[in-house]
C-alpha cells in the first residue's frame, strides 16, 4: 500500500515577491519588502527548496543581496550575505546533493561563476569560473518535483524486494555509499538516469544506504 502524499505546489518569483499557485491562479506567498522576521526580502530572483522542506530565496537587491531561508511565516536566517563581497548573484538552485548553487559575476575578475554552499550558508566554494554572464542552471537529473511521490531509502544492511506502484518506475540517482559487493546496485548505478519498469525493485545484499527515487510515469 502506498500512502497518499501531499501534492507539490508551484511557486513563481515576480516583482511582488514569491507567489504560490492554488491550481488556477497565483496568490501571494512571500511579499517583497516584507518578511516579518529579522530579514526583509527586497528583490527576489529565485526560490528553491531543500529536500527537508526549507525554502530559500535569493535576493538580488543592490543593498541587501543574499540568500534567505524561509520557515513558517518569517525569514529566520540570512544564510549568505553578498552585501560585503564583490559578487553579483543571479540565480539559485538546490542541487541533488542538497547544496545551494548560485550563479553570478565576480566583480574582481569580471567573470561569471557558480558558487556552492551548504544549506546553512557555510562552505562557500567557487564550483565553476570562467563564465560570461551565467543565469539559469539545471542539473542533469530530473527535476526534483518530478520524482514524487516517494523516496525509498535503504538503511544499512536492509535489502530485499520492494513493491512499486502500478506503472511506476525507478531511478537511482544518488548512491550515498554504494557497496562494491552489491551486483544489483552496480548494475543499476551504471545507468543512474535510466528509467526501469519493473513491478518490484530488488536491492541486493550489501546495497545499503542507497537512495532510490521512485516516481510515477508522467501523464502527458
Amino acid at each position, binding site marked *: 500500500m502506498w500512502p497518499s*502524499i*501531499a*501534492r*507539490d*505546489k*508551484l*511557486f*513563481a*518569483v*515576480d*516583482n*511582488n515577491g514569491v*507567489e504560490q*499557485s492554488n491550481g*488556477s491562479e*497565483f496568490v501571494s506567498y512571500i511579499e517583497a519588502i516584507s518578511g516579518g522576521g529579522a530579514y526583509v526580502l527586497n528583490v527576489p*530572483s*529565485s526560490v*528553491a*527548496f531543500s*529536500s527537508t*522542506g526549507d*525554502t530559500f530565496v535569493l535576493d538580488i537587491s543592490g543593498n541587501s543581496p543574499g540568500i534567505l531561508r524561509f520557515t513558517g511565516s518569517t525569514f529566520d536566517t540570512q544564510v549568505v550575505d553578498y552585501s560585503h563581497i564583490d559578487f553579483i548573484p543571479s*540565480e539559485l538552485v538546490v542541487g*541533488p*546533493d542538497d547544496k545551494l*548553487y548560485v550563479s553570478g559575476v565576480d566583480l574582481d575578475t569580471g567573470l*561569471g561563476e*557558480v558558487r556552492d554552499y551548504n544549506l546553512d550558508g557555510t562552505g562557500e566554494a567557487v*564550483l*565553476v569560473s570562467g*563564465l*560570461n*554572464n*551565467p*543565469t*539559469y*542552471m*539545471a*542539473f*542533469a*537529473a*530530473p*527535476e*526534483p*518535483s*518530478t*520524482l*514524487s*511521490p*516517494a*523516496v*525509498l531509502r*535503504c538503511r544499512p544492511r536492509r535489502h530485499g524486494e520492494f513493491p512499486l506502484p502500478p506503472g511506476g518506475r525507478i531511478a537511482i*540517482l544518488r548512491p550515498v555509499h554504494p557497496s562494491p559487493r552489491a551486483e544489483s546496485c552496480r548494475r543499476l548505478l551504471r545507468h*543512474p*538516469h535510466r528509467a526501469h519498469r519493473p513491478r518490484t525493485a530488488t536491492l541486493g545484499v550489501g546495497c545499503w544506504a542507497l537512495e532510490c527515487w521512485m516516481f510515477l510515469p*508522467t*501523464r*502527458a
Partner: protein
Amino acid sequence: MAALPNLFISDGDNVDVFNGSSLNTNFISTNSAAGLAVGVDGTLYAVSRDDAQVYSYNAMTGALTGTFVPFLGSTDPGSVQGPAGMTWGPDGHLYIADVTASNVHVYSGTGASLTSLGSATLDQPTHVAFNRTGQTLRRG
C-alpha cells in the same frame, strides 16, 4: 559520495556544461538562453529568450533534437512572449515563466499548450519552481 551530475548553465548565447572537473562553454549555441530544465528521460530543454521557443537537446552531446514548444505568434495565447525560468512539474507538464505576458505557461509532455496561469498579482515572473513536499514518504 557520488559524483554530482553535470551542471548546465545559461550563459548569454550559450548553454555551458560543467562535468565536475571541466567546463565546456560552447556546449549549446542558442539565441539568448534563459530557463533550463531536464526531463525524467534525461533530455535537456532550453528556452531561447530571443526565439521564444523551447528546444530539446541530447544532454550528453548537446545535439539539438527538436523544437519542443514553437513560437506561434505574438498574439497566440499558447506562445511564450518573454520566456524566463522553467521547470518540469510532477504532473509531467512543463511550466514556463513569461515576463512579458505576466503569466506562467503550461505545456504537456509533448509540447502542446495546455493553459496559462496568472492572476492580478502576478507581475513579470522570472522564475518558477515546485516545492518538494511529497518526497520524503517511505523509508525502508
